[in-house]
């Protein structure tokens, strides 16, 4: 049995997906602490704050590729979190797209995984959870869940 992820942060502009993700995580016992944000700017501000040291910061971050209403996209947020705020969290993209060029950019930005959104997200999250320890220990290679 895979361990429960302490806390997850979801950054996605689609509020309906927040509900889907929350219910899927609860049904699969993935985490007990899930926070959701609708903008990349808000997430970047929080990570900037957490950079100064906080026990409040999430253990794993799921970022949407195109976050409407934000100053930058999901890949830029991943890059900022990885290279500017250096929090060492498990971070990846969750998007309905699986464009190879974007996937390549995400890898360069430091994303550890890419989950393709669909009507049936649960099997992908289940698979992700099995691989989670590898991401946490930085031993698992980048993986595309589709």
């Amino acid at each position: 049995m895979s361990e429960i992820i302490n806390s997850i942060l979801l950054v996605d502009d689609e509020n309906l997906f927040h509900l889907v993700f929350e219910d899927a995580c609860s049904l699969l016992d993935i985490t007990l602490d899930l926070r959701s944000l609708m903008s990349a700017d808000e997430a970047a501000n929080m990570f900037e704050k957490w950079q100064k040291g906080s026990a409040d910061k999430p253990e794993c971050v799921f970022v949407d590729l195109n976050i409407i209403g934000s100053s930058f996209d999901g890949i830029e947020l991943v890059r900022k979190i990885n290279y500017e705020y250096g929090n060492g969290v498990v971070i990846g993209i969750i998007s309905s797209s699986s464009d190879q060029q974007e996937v390549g950019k995400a890898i360069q930005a430091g994303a550890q995984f890419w989950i393709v959104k669909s009507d049936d997200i649960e099997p992908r999250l289940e698979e992700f959870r099995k691989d989670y320890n590898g991401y946490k220990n930085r031993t698992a290679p980048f993986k595309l869940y589709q």
Partner: protein
Amino acid sequence: MKIAFLKEDVEKLIKLSKERNVFMEGNIIKLIDDQGNPEFAEYLEKAKQKDKDSRKMRLEVTKQVQQQNKELEAKAAENDQLMNDLKQALEKADAAKKAALNDLDLLQKRTQFELIGRIVEVALWIIMGVGVTTTLLYCIALFSGSVKDTTLLGNTWSNLFGILLTNSFSIIGTIMGVKYASGETSKKG
């Protein structure tokens, strides 16, 4: 980390579930310790299952709404595209109508001018013909020495020339008037 409840609270929770079918909900249930109480363990299991069922139902509904939203968005995009196509078609039809009207106007003007040109041409030939004939008759009369005919033809010649000149100016005036009127009509149209 597990949460332990007081015995009285556990009893109250079990009683509430039995009497009113009300259970605890949410992720907190997963963190509660049954403290070896089989009745409370059963309560927690039941609460977890109920929570799972309601989440499953909510997840299905949310997915359906999400799907419907996607379909609505796709339909809205399709409608926008149709509206754009329709707008473009209307613009094209309007431009074609304007071009057709313009062509018709030009054709009408050309026909009018052709007709006017022909009338003027015929009128001028008649004027010239009458003028030349009268002058010719007058010259013959002059050279033949017939005083009576000369006087008659001289008067006729001068009268005819007067009438012909008046008619010529009248024709020219009519032509100018027609040209001006057709110019005004095309400006208004």
